[in-house]
């Protein structure tokens, strides 16, 4: 996951600026004149068709009214394909297909056989990993080294992990009988399209549910390729159904009366609408929503590691990460030094072509998201925070944004309160651990937190006091299929990953 940690070797010392204390020899953040030859990953491995239909009941079908929408490459703004725009009738058809598969085939299959299908899917994902990685980077804008080294391997690992649970449910919940919930409606975001699909589908299928999944409308391609992979795995028709379309179709899906379970990952605003939309329907619901994580650096922290962790925390995947460490809380005594080191590190970050293997920060996913980031950064400047951006060149076309670092930020600033979902870091300082705790928890969100210190007892104290579902100590943005992930407070409820993630897809009955 430490994608950006791989290029520490290049961060050679730069000349000391007159404004920085000479003892540091660092801190002006000038771009280092490293020339990189282009190292593009070939896209030949992927065939993107002109048109894609809905994947319902094991077949590809056009939408019932024939309408489509376009998915574009955010790095070039070129259209990639026309995608069927599902209607409510299509939603109904997909739920029916899932219901039928659940009651007729998948729900009756012994866990042992479900496991074998899931292992098969994991293996196929590994076999076709390069193809998925390239497709993911083209459709989403994320750097190829992230899709190649993080998204796709983790997606395969999730199927692998949950495959093994399928025939061991009786050991997962001792004293209880775990039954599938039925049909799961799953709506996923555009930041980790294939990985979020895996987080949703793997535990659902392991427990004997069938699914209707709607990928985000800007990133449908990897889900549609996954549907093809399901056919290749000979997965029974209707077990996995993929419908594509805008948010209204997601809402139609989750509110469909024959859905038993709803799982959503996305913004808190949409999560709220979903919870309200299904109010009183008795559906099981898990929500994985927004975040505004504090990454807290104490004065005894290993600073160079912390710098890598901060960079990974906020610039990984262009900062389009719900658990991104978007608020840097630095102990006052080391703030100047840490910021200087951070500026130097930022100067070595390469922004550009997602398919270039040297790229650290790719394209922002959409024009709308780029506008939102731009607007919030402007608000930060207008409210009086100091903005620093490295002098990197951005491609002429495509949705790109410079890695941004704000200092002199107040807690009341929008950039310190709102989820930006972009490569924008807001720095605040603190003097005492108590002040750090208060500031870290001073948000309606509670998804993740980071702690950097060499003192073990302080780590455990901070762990206890953080109101956040994932706490990274001396690391950040690590993920694993065995590790439960999810939020406190308005970051949602329920967990994905691990045994806790499995529980979200079962009904426990007495023996």
């Amino acid at each position, binding site marked *: 996951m430490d994608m950006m940690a791989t290029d520490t070797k290049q961060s050679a010392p730069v000349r000391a600026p007159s404004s920085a204390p000479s003892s540091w020899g660092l801190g002006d953040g000038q771009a280092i004149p490293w020339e990189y030859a282009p190292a593009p990953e070939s896209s030949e491995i992927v065939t993107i068709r002109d048109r894609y239909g809905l994947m319902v009941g094991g077949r590809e079908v056009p939408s019932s009214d024939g309408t489509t929408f376009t998915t574009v490459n955010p790095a070039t703004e070129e259209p990639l394909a026309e995608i069927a725009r599902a209607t409510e009738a299509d939603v109904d058809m997909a739920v029916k297909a899932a219901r039928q598969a659940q009651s007729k085939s998948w729900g009756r299959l012994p866990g042992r056989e479900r496991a074998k299908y899931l292992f098969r899917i994991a293996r196929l994902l590994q076999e076709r990993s390069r193809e998925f990685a390239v497709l993911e980077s083209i459709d989403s804008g994320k750097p190829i080294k992230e899709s190649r080294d993080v998204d796709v391997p983790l997606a395969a*690992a999730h199927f692998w992990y949950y495959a093994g649970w399928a025939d061991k449910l009786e050991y997962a919940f001792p004293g209880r009988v775990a039954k599938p919930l039925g049909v799961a409606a799953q709506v996923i975001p555009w930041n980790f399209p294939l990985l979020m699909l895996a987080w949703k589908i793997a535990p659902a299928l392991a427990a004997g549910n069938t699914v209707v999944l709607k990928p985000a409308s800007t990133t449908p391609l990897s889900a549609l390729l996954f549907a093809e992979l399901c056919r290749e795995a000979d997965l029974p028709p209707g077990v996995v159904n993929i419908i594509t379309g805008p948010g209204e179709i997601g809402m139609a899906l989750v509110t469909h009366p024959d859905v038993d379970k709803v799982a959503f990952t996305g913004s*808190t605003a949409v*999560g*709220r609408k979903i*919870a*309200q939309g299904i*109010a*009183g329907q*008795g559906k099981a619901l898990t*929500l994985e*929503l927004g975040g505004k994580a504090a990454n807290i650096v104490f004065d005894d922290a290993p600073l160079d590691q912390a710098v890598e962790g901060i960079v990974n925390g906020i610039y990984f995947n262009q900062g389009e990460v719900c658990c991104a460490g978007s608020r840097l809380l630095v102990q006052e005594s080391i703030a100047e030094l840490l910021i200087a080191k951070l500026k130097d590190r930022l100067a070595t970050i390469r922004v550009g072509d997602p398919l270039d293997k040297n790229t650290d920060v790719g394209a922002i996913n959409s024009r709308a998201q780029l506008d939102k980031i731009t607007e919030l950064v402007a608000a930060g400047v207008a409210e009086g925070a100091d903005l620093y951006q490295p002098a990197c060149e951005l491609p002429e076309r495509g949705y790109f944004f410079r890695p941004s670092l704000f200092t002199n930020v107040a807690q009341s600033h929008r950039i310190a309160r709102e989820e930006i979902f972009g490569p924008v870091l807001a720095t605040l300082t603190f003097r005492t651990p108590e002040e750090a705790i208060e500031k870290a928890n001073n948000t*309606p969100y509670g998804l993740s937190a980071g702690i950097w210190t060499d003192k073990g007892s302080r*780590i455990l104290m901070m*762990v206890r006091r*953080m109101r*956040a*579902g*994932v*706490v*990274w*100590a*001396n*690391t950040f943005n*690590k993920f*694993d299929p*065995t*590790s*439960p*992930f*999810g939020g*406190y*407070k*308005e*970051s*949602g*409820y329920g*967990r994905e990953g*691990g*045994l*806790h993630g499995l529980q979200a897809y079962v009904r*426990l009955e*007495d023996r």
Partner: protein
Amino acid sequence: MPGVRLGAPDRIDIRKTYKLYIGGAFPRSESGRTYLVTSPKGDELANASRASRKDLRDAVRAARKAFEPWAGRTAMNRGQVLYRVAELMEGRRDQFVAEVAATEGLSGRRAGTLVDHAIDRWVWYAGWADKIAQVLGSTNPVAAPYFNFTIPEATGIVGLVGPESSSLLGLVSRLAPILVSGNTTVVLASETRPLPAVTLGEVLATSDVPAGVVNLLTGLKKELVPVLAAHVDVDAVDTWGVAPDDQVAVERSAAESIKRIARRPRGVTDAAFDWTDDRAAQRPEWIAAFLEMKTVWHPIGA
């Protein structure tokens, strides 16, 4: 108004004023309002306080203040505090039996059974305090050099809309699992059968449950439930005692701040549920409903 009788008939008895329980104190409603509580047969039993929105907000404040210290107690200590509630209820058993019998219109024998179950339920949940983390937590074998573990923690403030029919046993059955993990609560007692809940508050006040951990309100649900569901500093709601017709509105309102919502199991009605069925009415899942799972990563290395 005959009230709830205890003791010999040849003496003028001292009747109790049934008050609210907020932040460890027993105020009347700041609104000065009361409402008449009757037995199922229509006998007048007492005037209960009719809590206002302001009382509810005060209760939430008290619960918030009490949360970190209560959640920060050791698990064993919380277990002992819950067990202490059982000890004190046992000592007041006759009073609870008389109140439950009068409030729910039951024979003394049946009421005795319900009170016994209520006392035993505290004991059952008390024993869970230092076991939840071992049953519901985990260490996770991640595929990288990190030590990774998951621990359950209390959600925060839980708004409990108490069962309407079962004035004491139902309430205790929903309250104890909320408390045992370290949550604090604002409880809306049964509207029509509120008296045993108030007496329970008196037990809590004289046990070792810290002030503000449980705050008990009596009053009209149509006034109080919407305020409880909408209050942004309430982290979760237990909707057991919400009227079926109001369930959608409560859930919609609770969703505004992404509250956790606990519901009656599918197909279960408040009136018909058998609270003496231990298998159905005391469940670790009811503890888990108000827990957050926290996962911690730390590198392994020199």
